[in-house]
């Protein structure tokens, strides 16, 4: 409770000003902090890394310092940029597939409890099957390499979307469902106007998980699909530099992956906020 019992009753005019000034100050602080603190933490993390590497004299081939990684990133950007683009493409497509086939399956599954009980286990099967083990099978029967890559990445990424969306579709308010029944809404209308909006926060939660996973999926897919030389993504660069003991470049490639992951997350968080800020508890700013 924010009631402040100590403020005296008299002197109200100056008190008022003081309070308003205080409110303003708090607001300004919070506005600055929103940006300053993450940056501060980032600087501290980098500084800590640097300190670790120098103080413990960790050789650069085991863990290069941030400066070395940055300069390698700068110098090798020509080599890495092409690979980055490949990884980005696969990631983007895999995420798209995950949305379409994860969300689509979720919609299918909520159409009937029976369908869900009959087919959901196979989604779990897909989720837990080690890609490494079945990749050869996939590549035996899928001719196009890019299709194989996408299947692998999709298998890694789709489950959170499926699972969260199913949960969301089933979490639509019962009173609203009743309302839709009263007006004789068709299955499709109920889905479109009630279940999908109600599932949105859950779906977006799944999407934020799947964003990172599709990146991982792209990397793993590349490992198992194994493309050499031209047209290969960051995973290949990592393996290759690791193999060549070019650890700084490996970390430069890792940095690109990590930056991509964080960027995907931030973009998806922003999308989430844009879509939910008007109405969902998780995105609402309290009071005004």
């Amino acid at each position: 409770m924010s009631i402040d019992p100590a403020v005296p009753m008299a002197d109200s005019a100056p008190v008022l000003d003081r309070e308003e000034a205080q409110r303003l100050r708090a607001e300004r602080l919070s506005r600055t902090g929103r940006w300053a603190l993450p940056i501060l933490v980032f600087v501290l993390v980098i500084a800590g890394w640097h300190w670790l590497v120098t103080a413990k004299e960790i050789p650069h081939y085991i863990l290069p310092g941030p400066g070395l990684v940055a300069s390698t990133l700068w110098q090798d950007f020509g080599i890495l940029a092409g690979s980055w683009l490949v990884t980005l493409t696969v990631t983007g497509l895999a995420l798209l597939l995950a949305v379409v086939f994860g969300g689509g399956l979720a919609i299918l599954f909520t159409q009937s409890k029976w369908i869900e009980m009959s087919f959901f286990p196979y989604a779990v099967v897909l989720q837990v099957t080690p890609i490494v083990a079945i990749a050869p099978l996939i590549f035996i029967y899928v001719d196009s390499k890019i299709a194989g890559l996408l299947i692998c990445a999709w298998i890694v990424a789709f489950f959170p979307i499926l699972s969260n969306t199913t949960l969301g579709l089933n979490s639509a308010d019962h009173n609203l469902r009743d309302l839709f029944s009263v007006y004789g809404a068709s299955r499709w209308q109920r889905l479109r106007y009630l279940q999908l909006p109600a599932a949105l926060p859950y779906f977006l939660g799944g999407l934020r998980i799947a964003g990172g996973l599709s990146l991982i999926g792209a990397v793993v897919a590349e490992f198992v699909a194994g493309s050499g030389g031209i047209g290969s993504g960051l995973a290949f660069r990592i393996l290759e530099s690791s193999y060549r003991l070019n650890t700084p470049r490996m970390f430069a490639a890792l940095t690109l992956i990590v930056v991509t992951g964080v960027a995907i997350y931030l973009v998806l968080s922003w999308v989430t906020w844009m879509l939910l800020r008007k109405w969902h508890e998780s995105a609402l700013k309290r009071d005004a």
Partner: protein
Amino acid sequence: AESHVMEVNFGTNWVAQAEHGGYYQAVADGTYEACGLKVTIVPGGPQVNNRALMLAGKIDFSMGGNLLQAFSAVKEGIPLKVVAAHFQKEPQVLLTHPGKVTDFEGLKDLETMIIGDNGFQSFYQWMMADYGFDAGKRVPYTFNPAPFIADENSAQQGYITSEPFAIEKEGGFAPDIWLLSDAGFNTYATTVETMQETIDTKPDAVKCFVEGSAIGWTNYLYGDPSAANALIQEANPEMSDEQIAFSIEKMKEYGIVLSGDAETAGIGAMTAETIQSFYDKMVDAGVLEAGIDVSQSYTLDFANTGASLELQKQLASK
């Protein structure tokens, strides 16, 4: 003849490197094409399983590491045949920090053995059985030598043609080298495997590929390898001239490709005795079960034709 050019592909076990030089050479200088093959080389990689693709008929030839898998295939009833062995010796080595151990037995006293998955399944099984190495000391080799460089008390697997170079370059010391073949792991390596069906339906292609490869290897090691190296570097831009030169030198120095039977029967040659003796050894060591008919695992029809002998005499004697 051009209309009869047949397209085949060959899956290697790693990204393009000098250890595949003979095949690239034969592609580059038209040796395969001369006998009617258009060969596409499909590079492998750390998690890539080109052999599985061959089993499924997606790839015509696949590069085998050593003979163990060919024996397994017989056991599992898989109609797979080794048609040539381009490395007479297993080039696999164990690396240690300089002066750390004095002989192969001494490796057992180290605390960590950095061995890849395939290595663990093959030669390490033999090392455990024959020398009493400890499975618990093994950590996987991810083709990154940093853990080895960081830990004096470790040994790491490697190809004699690759890892010593990388470690010397990055780690700043020349590691001690323990060749497995010297310790008794007398398998052929870098074999060419194909399905029985391929042998039955297109024996000409198999013949052309095996003989062309032998000629390719001869040219690569003893002739001018620059065209092949260009292909290798195209497929794998990271491959440095220095590394290639190092590999070629080591392959020659240790007689990896050209030694023993290969000197008399041509590069890629195999003998039933060598294969049987390796199998017996593995059975004795408990790596494989007895009773596998290993003669099912290979055919000498293609490898021992001596197609490259002429050229070998010409070039290698120089």
